[in-house]
């Protein structure tokens, strides 16, 4: 069975990629993923805030109270050099993973505003990453910013990063755009090598005792795959870039569905966190079994077969689908 696929110009042995998560923080875990069959690994994200706030905090706290009192003109020795630890550790981890596994290692940079943090794209490339996933995680809370402003920001971010590095760049997106198809097209035109659909925003929760907003992470459920499925199907016909389905991939069926709508790869983390790395192997086996049973020869053969362009009933991806669903539950 030919499970190979191409993603961001990289030839992968199968369409199962480990998505950005804490799993990639451990070299042994990544090695195990490779052993169990993962075709590539997207590393956990290096956040803009990690890069910037660390520098700011350091500047603030080292200078706090300095040059204000005659006996204590500073409160800390001035070290020769500072390293941004989070960032340095991240780069070290890229290098370590590259020297440990043979599968492609995709770095992940998570940020919003244009600025110095983007220099880390180059550093990640230099550390050996095969590609970079740019995760633009932006909550548009500013009422003065129009959707056009926001779209422009995404495109500019991508262009800046592209200008800094030679390795392929995928953009991980949220679905919350007024004109998602157009947004995807803009990014495609701006040179994105891939689009990763979709980012799962960590939605806030409330702590009733403390009357505070609390942030925690809920793992995904298979149902969440529905959204990427729709949009991959819609985008596939006119997007040149690779497409990756992420959020809700938990089994071989999920992989098959995503590939059929047009995904070049499927990415999973929740399933691996919940049920172990061994799931990659199991899913691959299920995938092969299903393909054999249904007499498919390769992933390429089924890729995009159920996209908007090729599906028997394209309207199912549109509003009609909605009406149909509603009617079905009456």
């Amino acid at each position, binding site marked *: 069975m030919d499970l190979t696929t191409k993603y961001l110009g990289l030839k992968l042995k199968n369409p199962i990629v480990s998505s950005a998560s804490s799993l990639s923080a451990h070299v042994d875990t990544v090695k195990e993923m490779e052993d169990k069959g993962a075709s590539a690994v997207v590393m956990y994200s290096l956040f803009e805030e990690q890069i910037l706030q*660390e520098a*700011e905090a350091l*500047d603030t706290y080292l200078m706090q109270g300095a040059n*204000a009192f005659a006996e204590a*003109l500073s409160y800390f020795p001035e*070290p020769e050099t500072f390293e*941004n630890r989070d960032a340095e550790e991240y780069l070290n981890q890229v290098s370590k993973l590259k020297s440990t596994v043979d599968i492609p290692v995709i770095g992940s940079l998570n940020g919003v505003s244009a600025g*110095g943090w983007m220099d880390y794209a180059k550093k990640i490339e230099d550390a050996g990453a095969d590609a970079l996933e740019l995760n633009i995680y932006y909550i548009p809370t500013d009422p003065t910013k129009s959707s056009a402003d926001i779209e422009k920001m995404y495109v500019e971010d991508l262009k800046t990063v592209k200008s800094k590095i030679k390795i392929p760049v995928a953009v991980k997106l949220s679905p919350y755009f007024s004109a998602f198809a157009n947004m995807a097209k803009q990014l495609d035109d701006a040179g994105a090598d891939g689009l990763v659909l979709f980012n799962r925003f960590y939605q806030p929760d409330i702590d009733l005792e403390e009357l505070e907003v609390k942030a925690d992470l809920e793992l995904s459920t298979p149902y969440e795959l529905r959204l990427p499925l729709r949009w991959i199907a819609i985008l596939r016909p006119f997007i040149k870039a690779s497409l990756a389905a992420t959020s809700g991939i938990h089994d071989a069926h999920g992989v098959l569905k995503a590939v059929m709508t047009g995904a070049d790869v499927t990415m999973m983390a929740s399933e691996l966190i919940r049920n172990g790395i061994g799931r990659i192997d199991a899913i691959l086996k299920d995938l092969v079994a299903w393909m054999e049973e249904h007499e498919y020869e390769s992933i390429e053969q089924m890729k995009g077969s159920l996209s908007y362009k090729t599906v028997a009933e394209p309207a199912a991806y549109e509003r009609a689908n909605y009406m149909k669903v509603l009617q079905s539950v009456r």
Partner: protein
Amino acid sequence: MARKMVTIDGNEAAAYVAHKINEVIAIYPITPSSPMGEHSDEYSAKGEKNIWGTIPSVTEMQSEGGASGAVHGALQAGALTTTFTASQGLLLMIPNMYKIAGELTSTVFHVSARSIAAQALSIFGDHSDVMAVRSTGFGMLASNSVQEVMDFALISQAATLEARVPFVHFFDGFRTSHEVMKVEQLTRDDMKAMIDDDLVIAHRKRGLNPEHPVLRGTAQNPDVFFQGRETVNPYYEKTPAIVQKAMDKFAKIVGREYHLFDYVGHPEAERVIVLMGSGAEAVRDTVEYLSAKGEKVGAVIVRLYRPFSMKDFVAAFPKTTKAVAVLDRTKEPGSAGEPLYQDAVTAFTEMVTEGKLPFNFPKVIGGRYGLSSKEFTPGMIKAVLDELTKEAPKNHFTIGIHDDVSHTSLEWDKSFIIEGDDVVRGMFFGLGSDGTVGANKNSIKIIGEGTENYAQGYFVYDSKKSGSVTTSHLRFGKNPIHSTYLIEKANFLACHQFVFLEHIDMLENAAEGATFLLNAPYPKDEVWNKLTKDAQQQIIDKKLKFYVIDAYSVAKKTGMGARINTIMQTCFFAISGVLPKDEAIQKIKDAIKKTYGKKGDKIVQMNFNAVDQTLENLYEVEVPNQVTSQIEMVHPVPEHAPDFVQDVTATLIAGKGDDLPVSKMPADGTWPTGTTQYEKRNVGLEVPVWEEDLCIQCNKCVAVCPHAVIRAKVYDEAILENAPETFKSTKVRGRDFPEGYKYTIQVAVEDCTGCELCVEVCPAKSKTEPGKKAINMAPQIPLRETERENWYYFLDIPEYDRSKLKIDTLKGSQFLQPLFEFSGACPGCGETPYIKLATQLFGDRMVVANATGCSSIYGGNLPTTPWAKNHDGRGPAWSNSLFEDNAEFGLGFRLTIDKQTQQARELLEGMKNEVGAELAEAILTADQHDEADIAEQRERIIKLEEKLATISTPEAKHLTSLAEYLVKKSVWIIGGDGWAYDIGYGGLDHVLASGKNVNILVLDTEVYSNTGGQMSKATPTGAVAKFAASGKPLGKKDLGMLAMAYGNVYVAQVAMGYNDTQTVKAFMEAERYDGPSIIIAYSHCIAHGYNLKDGMKHQKLAVESGIWQMYRFNPEAEKEGKNPLRLDYKEPKIPVSDYMSTETRFNMVNKMNPEAAKEFIAHAQEQANKRWEKYSHLAKMEASEK
């Protein structure tokens, strides 16, 4: 190797050389010498090698006594060894200095000379300390400028190696140690050329070594000691020539020429000043200025003070000399004259006696100047020279003060200024927190190192650690700068904080036609009318060029927050003309890149942006030709302040302390308490506002407030009748108070520093708006007037009867009036809440011995002090002796109190019949266990005093003077960890062992906070501190466990942020315990590196991770058959890394050396676990097992 020009201060110049020509360095922090040790430690931490290719070993000791011991030992063992110190530190070295000199050991001690505490402590510069060691046998070489510090550090080392006489190389504290100056940096080659390796090897060979053993340090008897003492004479005789030889060699190598005594001035001078130290620089300029005008004046500048070469001294004078004024920067009360004066007189006399004086015996007078960095200006110098023209000049005069008591002082002309227009003189008034000083240091570097110009910077700080005002004095010019005094008339003057104009008459310092830059929160068209009347008048009269910028708006816009340093610096370069504008701006940007580069690109970009925005927002204001303002400058203290405060304190607050005559000063250093209440500093931009409807009345905000600006009172509702309209109150909760009573939390907004600790600890939240608490921050200015009125109204509400409060609870204790208020401590200070608590509980009968350190500075630094009195006029009596002796000092209080109490009891016993047996018996048997008991005893004492007033026996007189001792007194010994763990530990241990009833409060910040964060033995594993630049590898000393080992000492370790009730209980138990008690209090500190508003959270994390243990060890329990140790914390539930990762002091290691950080964390975890195991094991033991 070419020498480069650098802009550095004197401390750095000394450390730079000393580190390269020594092998062992033993250090201990003391202002103003600490930076020399810090630099050395940093050099070694960075792996910098000395000229022989090895990295000098730098070791921090527990005291200067310890440092000198280690130096002595290292020297005896043959290493080239040095140390750095000042003031009391040098005094602690004296015993070893006699030994080192007696043993003819080559070494140089670098001393930034500082006043010795007498009627008061002073951190500033004079020669009291070095003059106190002139009899030790050390040679003494004085540097007068930063360049000379660098040069003489090397010359003295070269000389000591040849002469075998050890040297004190000294320069003036602050004026030279902290003056930033452009100097030529000596190279390693210079040093190699100056230091003779054969002499180094000879020194090494004299070291103690079992391979060829010798014995030193014998005890000698009357038969030979004297002769032995005289053996050194030939060495001292040769030393001056050796020093001159080293100076000559230096001149050949480097080009700068020095002599043992340098003469400057008119070649045929008749009037000559003699002095040494930084003042000589000002004298040089002045005599040259006057000589150029034809006055026959000059100066002999003393370089080598010991051994004093009379021959060379006399030879330095022009043969035309007729009158000499010898100036000493020290005071020796009761002497025949100050030391240099006496030496000069002796020299002239001896030379006359020997017939070697090449001119007639001159008129010689001596005078004192410049004590504690008192200004020494050309006007003063001229006054001294003018005095010499008189037939009978005043001898033993003073210059620089107005002495209306002993009439020693000379008058001087304050308008006599010798600086020309070729020097750019800039004065900058800023806040400590706004970055003004940092920016100015940067400007000096830019100009000093980036252009041909010479540059000088000197910075004046006020005595507060919060909201402190800084004044920067910057000079730039084509020629070397010798003006070792503050700028008198500035041609550029900048006010970085608009509010200063209301308090500080800064324009007084503006020269005619000067440029005045003002940071104002107003548009340029409105600024003029916001100025004070006085400011407007001066701007018009002096024809100032007036520029404004709204720097805070620019800072906000460019993401700089409240930091206006780069913005104001840009303004200076844009309008001062010191450099072409474009060149200057480029240089600022280069400097930004250099300074902030390692902290990240964002910081650099932010600053670049600020520079660009500044230029767009800087405006020149067209100055109207008449005054329009009605705004007057604010009087420094309120009208109701007492006379002394109006008369003296107000002058100090106004920054006019220099104008106070001697008669205004208390003769013995005794000052009134409770004066901070009159200094309304208004430094908090935002202040807490109480929401009475949300408040649950827990009083936590009151407890944590470091400055005692949040107060709670419970009172009868009737009191509200005349309350101001905005005065807030609510019904008091709980059954402990009478029905209908009211509760108020009142904030002294004018005294608040805006730290936000109160908001962070407030547990009450609004149900409709949970982001809002029962106390929230709001801008101060709109609240100022109303809250001032409310505050004074609140103060007039009677205190609740303290005998009826549950004061062993946090809530109850916080209704007690704090008798420690509005100190100058940092915003968010972690120490002061504990001190305040002690004063609430025991303040009216408390006497405090305070170790030198943060607590003695915010507790006792003028102009105003925070220890206060209650409505009855009672309150803590406070004193500071030294750093090292505080436990003993406090024990002395106890000994006296016990003795006086005993005497009073004995007298009362004997007078039972006269005063009434019942009253006497009641007094003698009073329990005084709690507040009610004490109140009753006070009543009895009043009756006793009334009785005694009717009896005229000597016993009655004595008992009257001692009766107050019959009310229980509470002795508190307070200090930081530097004192308790290090320098004062020996004494503290002895006092604990004394069994006497003293209460020791250790404010444990885990570093020497007051001197800028040096490592102490309380510093925990993995923390970066000065002298532990790579992180401290060893763990924190367990002081509590050591104290517990005695068995009869009450010991508590507390952290208010983890359990405030435990803190209150510990204070109560410690005070009640009739024996020694020690409370070790976790005190968060600015030197930990995080926003101090979260201080209490960090305390909690420290305990939850097990890094800080909470317990009370009460020997009383043992008497009841119980285990005296009670743990007040639980098994650690979070890893230590959760705590350590929140503080910069630990995080820094991770940034510099992540592997080391991991090891530190593992080690810290192990310690936390072990301490838990140990303590929990001990706490579980049966009492009999212990």
